[in-house]
């Protein structure tokens, strides 16, 4: 699939913008702060319903206006037009999402239809940062290819919240019917089991893809492995119930659940079992983050048969020229690519048949460079 046209109204610094993309490669060039990433942001919004930078809807509305609108027109896909509109009147936020003119009510009807992968400078936090960021990455990739996983996750969140609320009441020494906790344990175990199974399967496939892309892009001789680190040894519901009952006393003292998918993580290690973050340089970590994202593209393609739209948000400035070349080589895999960068001479578009370049200047003015 590829993105043909993006239309924006009152979105961040763009009052009224319509931009057409090359099916192969498009460069969006401009100085810092002119709004290059806002274009990527709008595209990611029509793909996942939220900003890839986690910016709240209200802040994406252009200053002085009450609403924004973005739409993406897609080619080579069953669904053609993805629209997201949001208005804020009298402090009340309303968001409306449509696919081909039909309003969408639940995220699972929307997610995974217009497939995109964003490469951004802060991806390195997936490698360096808190486990929460790795879980978010994991969940978003699996959800893009598996809508059951998305509904399991939302069920899981509700069950976890309910169990934790019960534990908190218990902590406050309320007189409670403990057989209710048995029920929450049971429900927690059955939905956790489905999530852990899906994650296990995912990490086996991701690891192969990751090692492949790591070898292609880095000069290191040996590629590290991704290991799924679950807080539960088995994905069998009965086992999880047993574990929950073992830690029940501890859980009720703390007032929250000590094991489960909400505590999962993944660790990257080399063959000597040394943690990647302990030996890798900053540059190697950056490469590993890029490889993870490339594996995401490969994973999506292997599961859905669709090449996702790749967006690369200003990560070239942080790579040396050799790695830049390697990365372009690895990215040249038939997906549509949209780059934002400060200087175009950072990237070499030879080898692509069709390219477009836009120059963004202050005030959100876009000119196509021919």
């Amino acid at each position, binding site marked *: 699939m590829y993105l043909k046209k993006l239309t924006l109204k009152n979105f961040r610094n763009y009052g009224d913008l319509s931009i057409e993309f090359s099916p192969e490669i498009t460069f969006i060039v401009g100085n810092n702060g002119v709004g290059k990433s806002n274009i990527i942001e709008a595209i990611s919004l029509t793909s996942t319903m939220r900003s890839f930078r986690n910016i709240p809807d209200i802040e994406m509305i252009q200053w002085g206006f009450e609403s924004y609108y973005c739409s993406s027109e897609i080619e080579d896909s069953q669904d053609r037009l993805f629209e997201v509109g949001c208005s804020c009147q009298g402090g009340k936020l309303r968001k409306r999402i449509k696919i081909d003119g039909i309003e969408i009510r639940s995220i699972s009807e929307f997610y995974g239809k217009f497939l995109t992968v964003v490469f951004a400078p802060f991806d390195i936090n997936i490698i360096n940062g808190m486990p929460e960021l790795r879980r978010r990455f994991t969940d978003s990739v699996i959800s893009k290819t598996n809508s059951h996983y998305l509904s399991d996750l939302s069920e899981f969140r509700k069950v976890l919240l309910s169990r934790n609320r019960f534990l908190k009441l218990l902590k406050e020494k309320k007189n*409670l019917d403990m057989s209710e906790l048995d029920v929450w344990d049971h429900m927690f175990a059955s939905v956790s089991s489905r999530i852990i199974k899906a994650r296990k399967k995912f990490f086996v496939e991701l690891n192969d893809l990751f090692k492949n892309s790591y070898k292609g892009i880095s000069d290191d001789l040996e590629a590290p492995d991704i290991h799924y680190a679950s807080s539960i040894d088995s994905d069998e519901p009965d086992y999880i119930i047993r574990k929950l009952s073992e830690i029940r006393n501890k859980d009720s003292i703390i007032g929250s659940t000590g094991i489960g998918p909400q505590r999962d993580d993944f660790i990257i290690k080399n063959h000597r079992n040394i943690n990647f973050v302990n030996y890798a340089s900053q540059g190697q970590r950056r490469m590993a983050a890029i490889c993870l994202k490339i594996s995401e593209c490969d994973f999506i393609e292997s599961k859905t048969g669709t090449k996702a739209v790749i967006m690369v948000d200003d990560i070239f400035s942080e790579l040396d020229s050799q790695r830049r070349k390697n990365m372009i080589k690895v990215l040249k895999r038939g997906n549509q690519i949209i780059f934002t960068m400060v200087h175009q001479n950072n990237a070499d578009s030879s080898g692509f048949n069709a390219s477009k370049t836009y120059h963004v200047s202050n005030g959100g003015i876009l000119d196509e460079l021919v």
Partner: protein
Amino acid sequence: MKNPSRYLDALTKELSRLPGIGPKSASRLAFHVLSMDGTEVERLARTLIEVKSHIFRCGVCGGISEGDICPICGDEMRERDVICVVRDPKDVLTIEATGGFHGRYHVLHGLISPLDGIGPDDLNIGSLVGRCRDGGIREIILALNPTVEGDATSLYLARLLSPGGITVTRIAHGLPVGSDLEFSDSATIARSIECRIRL
């Protein structure tokens, strides 16, 4: 917009507390009441009060009743050994409208939901246990919504009642009758495959 009268304002506020009524609809209804005949308004007010003063919870099932016991619990022709458990009195009407169930009901008046501060003790469960203990019950059918709260409540009741030798069943999850597989959401299809039956 401020109402020209504090009486109108008070009525608008009361009406907007009803489910499905926003401030605009409430204001329209309030103006409508103002334009109504005096006798019509009195009749409406009387009906509102009568609904509350003449309807009680059935002493057996917890459903709505004008006496101590509701017509369904009092009906000698209905099967006495099957109880269908529902969340609200309104659900009784929904199932009755199908004409496909001939047993009696039990209304829980809610579902277990720690997030809303509702536990088993807040629900009409004690009297259900009592009905089962009194004997003569062969099967309990749980007809609760297929949500996290509905499933948790079903599981709780199944664990509570099954040890007494009563068969506890839950209504099926699956495709709506006459629907098209193509237009069903994937969660429903997945559930209906999980809950498939042998032919």
